[in-house]
């Protein structure tokens, strides 16, 4: 620390010294930081094992300083199941995007939830395939333009966007479901609290925990980071409302 300076903020020690590849304004970076702050606060760096997906966050293991496995597209829930079943005393999470969790991997998602696999899903829903260049996702909004829905998503052809929180909260075996966002500092703090609660419930062995981050994709949405926050508020939140969908009874 330089003389005359006072430390008022630093990134968690559980984030690695590695420059992130995420686009400016993307919530992946924010969510990584929030998660690793929680890991630091709970003191579980040596007890947590993560699974990253195929998608923009495929390199999450480069940033999170915890043991991790990189899964095939859509299979993070199955990989997390394998890890958690062998290490029930550890904390396990899957970190997945909407294409990964809600399209190609929806079978693994649904069955892991129905079995009440005691790990935490961190589900980044930005309504688009970011890594492959902005194609339509299962969560792309009605009328939203993407490279594969250039005239806007047509529900007659593509159905309506999947509401994953609403789906998984129906399982008895799922303990905790909350949809959060990082579009404002207040919401980011709420998101962090939700992640913390999810890990804590997992440590209590309560069943599957599912945190959806209603996220953005300035690059894929072809807008500025600021405009992406507006879009979230005006278009995404009305369809994907934030809030707790399910929580353990005693709390």
């Amino acid at each position, binding site marked *: 620390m330089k003389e005359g300076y006072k430390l008022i903020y630093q990134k968690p020690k559980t984030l690695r010294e590695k420059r992130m590849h995420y686009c400016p304004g993307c919530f992946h970076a924010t969510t990584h930081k929030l998660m690793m702050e929680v890991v630091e606060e709970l003191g579980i760096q040596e007890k947590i094992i993560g699974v990253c997906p195929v998608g923009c966050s495929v390199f999450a293991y480069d940033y999170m300083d915890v043991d*991790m496995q990189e899964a095939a597209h859509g299979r993070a829930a199955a990989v997390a199941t394998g890890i958690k*079943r062998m290490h029930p005393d550890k904390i396990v999470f899957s970190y997945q995007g909407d294409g990964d969790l809600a399209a190609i991997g929806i079978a693994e998602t649904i069955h892991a939830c129905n079995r009440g696999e005691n790990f935490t899903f961190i589900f980044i829903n930005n309504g688009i395939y970011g890594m492959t260049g902005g194609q339509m996702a299962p969560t792309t909004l009605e009328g939203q333009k993407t490279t594969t829905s250039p005239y806007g998503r047509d529900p007659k052809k593509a159905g309506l966007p999947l509401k994953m929180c609403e789906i998984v909260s129906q399982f008895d075996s799922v303990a905790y479901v909350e949809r959060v966002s990082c579009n404002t500092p207040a919401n980011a703090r709420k998101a962090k609290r939700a992640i913390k609660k999810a890990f804590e419930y997992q440590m209590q062995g309560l069943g599957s925990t599912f945190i959806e981050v209603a996220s953005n994709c300035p690059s894929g949405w072809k807008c500025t980071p600021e405009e992406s926050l507006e879009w979230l508020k005006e278009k995404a939140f009305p369809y994907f409302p934030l809030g707790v969908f399910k929580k353990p009874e005693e709390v």
Partner: protein
Amino acid sequence: MGEIKLMKGNEALAEAAIRAGLQGYFGYPITPQSEVVEYLAREEPKHNYVLLQAESEVAAVNMLYGAGGAGARVMTTTSSPGFSLMQEGISYIACAQIPCLFANIVRGGPGLGTIQPSQSDYFQATKGGGHGDYHLIVLAPNSVQEMVDHVYLGFELADKYRSPAMLLSDGAIGQMMEKVQLPDPIEYKPDKPWATTGKKPGQERNYLTSLYIQPEEMEEKNIELQAKFKKIEENEVRFEEYKTDDAKIIIVSFGLSSRISKKSVDMAREAGLKVGLFRPITVWPFPANKIADIAARKQVNFFISIEMNAGQMVEDVKLAVNGKKPVYFYGRMGGIIPTPKEILTAVQARSRS
């Protein structure tokens, strides 16, 4: 040592896995191998392994990836259509170098095919099967006893080389009952400092991936994998010879068809024809050098590959013989098992021509 029992091939395989220290089994039912998961389900309360019936073979192989990556001794078993579904996961497992054991109790294909025994997954098993350059260590049992022995060996080789290993068996060996000697159970203590079991204090985190986006790094990873495969080829080739010393005709056959071919060798010898059997036990690594040695013998007139498929291993035999002697093929497809007499007739026909 060990216990002698009369057992079905699939059940013997399951019992052997338990005795070899199985810690996790993830699988999906499919004929003709469902007895494996059923046996493990029945025995589960007596042991400490994790047993999970997955929602699909796709999920099962990825559970294996997770559990094996987290350091456990893990296995899955399936039959041909299910093994096809697992190929993507196996490619990831091969690149991330996760030791685990597969068994494919092969049935006739293509497509949904038949539930009768076949050897038509030879290419898929020995050439990689999924995308990218890789091999599994592939053992081809031809008896219920070897269903047991190869489970022990497969687990051991998987750990030794940080590689997926597999049993390439078939519906007949899986379903038939034979006397089997079961080895004593071992207490498995994994020593896997690379496994994702939680970051160790003062050490770098462990991560398992098959992603190397810079081509230079991806090539480097491939060079590393190829060096490992070469080491396996140098050290782990296994085969069996039967009356090959003075043989003029060499039958090459693996798994179930090698058992039948053995009988054909005896019948041929009775009829005055000097036939011998060369049986690869590891079909990858393939015993190519040994076959080349035999091909160089003066008295050997020709090779004939006997398989329950349209002619798959015969390509490896031809590569090994490298034009030194003629290489023929005889096989049956679609779940038909050839008789010893039928094989003898095929050998005699080539012998006359």
